[in-house]
């Protein structure tokens, strides 16, 4: 039943490794970008607020597939952006990270914004009364509490992101869904086995994330 795995024809671990890398790089990138977006969204500069709001509303309502295809057709094929990669697969991978960061950043922003809303106004007022500037208020008082309050929504974003990495197949990144597509076409007598393997792989990737971060959310929650 599993004999096609021994043939060495399919690089299962390699594909899952690419998926894990995509998820990791995109997670770091979107955390940074999402934080920047939320900082702009609550900033005293109207133009920045407007930009961040417009960006979030537009990108959040665009399908991820469209974002990634636009990265490939627009950025790469029209504008010639390669992000320093040479091979087709590498370009696909890097563009996928870029697209995933651009897309997931909006959800990180929304999660953090709801986290900011849980911080009592007195915290910010006290910080201002001490004479802290806006960036200090945000950096020293508000965001640390907001991050701790939004571990659960951020964990959900991370799980969604891990699953969303499969969409990178649309622009030719050599990750799991592309391999599964090939395997489903070749191994027609073992469809259920193939699906079970990939399903298991994703459960292994997402389940610990949920458990660990669920535990972390309880530990980190600000007791009020």
């Amino acid at each position: 039943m599993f004999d096609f795995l021994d043939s060495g024809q399919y690089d299962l671990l390699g594909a899952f490794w690419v998926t894990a890398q995509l998820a990791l790089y995109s997670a770091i990138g979107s955390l940074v970008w999402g934080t920047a977006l939320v900082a702009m969204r609550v900033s005293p500069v109207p133009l920045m607020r407007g930009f961040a709001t417009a960006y979030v509303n537009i990108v959040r309502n665009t399908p991820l597939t469209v974002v990634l295809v636009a990265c490939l057709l627009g950025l790469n094929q029209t504008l010639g952006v390669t992000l320093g990669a040479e091979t087709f697969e590498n370009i696909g991978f890097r563009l996928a990270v870029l697209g995933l960061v651009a897309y997931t950043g909006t959800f990180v922003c929304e999660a953090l914004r709801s986290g900011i809303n849980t911080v009592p106004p007195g915290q910010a007022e006290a910080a201002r009364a001490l004479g802290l500037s806006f960036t200090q208020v945000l950096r020293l008082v508000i965001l640390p509490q907001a991050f701790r309050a939004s571990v659960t929504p951020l964990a959900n974003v991370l799980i969604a992101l891990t699953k969303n990495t499969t969409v990178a197949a649309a622009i030719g990144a050599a990750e799991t869904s592309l391999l599964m597509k090939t395997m489903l076409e070749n191994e027609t007598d073992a469809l259920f086995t193939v699906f079970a393997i990939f399903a298991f792989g994703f459960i292994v990737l997402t389940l610990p994330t949920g458990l660990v971060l669920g535990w972390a959310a309880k530990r980190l929650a600000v007791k009020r």
Partner: protein
Amino acid sequence: MSSVLYDTPGPRAKRRNVVYTIVFLAVLALVGWWVLDALNAKHQLDADKWSPFVTDSQVWTTYLLPGLTETLKAAALSIVIALPLGAALGIGRLSDHRWVRVPVGALVEFFRAIPVLLLMMFASALYREFTTVSSDFRPLYAVVTGLVLYNASVIAEVVRAGVLTLPRGQGDAAVALGMRKGQTMLYVLLPQAVTVMLPALVSQLVVIVKDTALGGALLGFGELLSQNRQITANYGANTIATLVVIALLYIVLNFLLTTLASRLEKRLRRGRKSPSVTLPAQAGATDVKSEAVSGA
């Protein structure tokens, strides 16, 4: 606008904000100029690449509108099938019987953990091998199957969370009236839960609409995004113009749904006398679940 996060700007802060605005504007303009210049160099901004979308009705009637119809068809079919299925699964998960609750819970958790794209691909392979569905309809079947399996399990969680947010007294009162378990669920709990979870359900629609695009990119489903290839082939490689128009269609459609969801949420919040809960409209990632919805 004043905010709790910063003081009302005085003369110096006002000046500083103006400087920030100018710097930010300059950065935006620089990026914009670089993109537009590069696009212009590739002749993507030429009028004849964009004019078909205004002057030629054929591009709409032959490609865009049929594509949009397919997208809406798949989304509508998915939600119509997934709603009752999800409600059944959600109620099953609340069952008093262990042998119902545990397997249903496992099923729901399983399908929520699998990327919807893998479900679509698997469904497509199954239809190819085991059924006689013609290859014209197979992509639609596969997309709808994948979306139904995934969204039914998400809706199951929404329903479960919705029922669990109701005050305990509701169920107790129904029992005191002598209602059976089925009656309690059907006449007392579900009708109230539906109003609580309406916003979450509408924003799940946004997720479904967005996910139909997967079928276009990877399964040969003739929905809105997949029309991109046809149009660029027929109207002189107007890649950027086509992508912009297609993206705009998606954005407008989803923006309407998101607005509807948040209106519903506000209205439901206002309509209740007690400071009761409403399941928030989900943010709308492929499955970003709000805290309340993810429940356990």
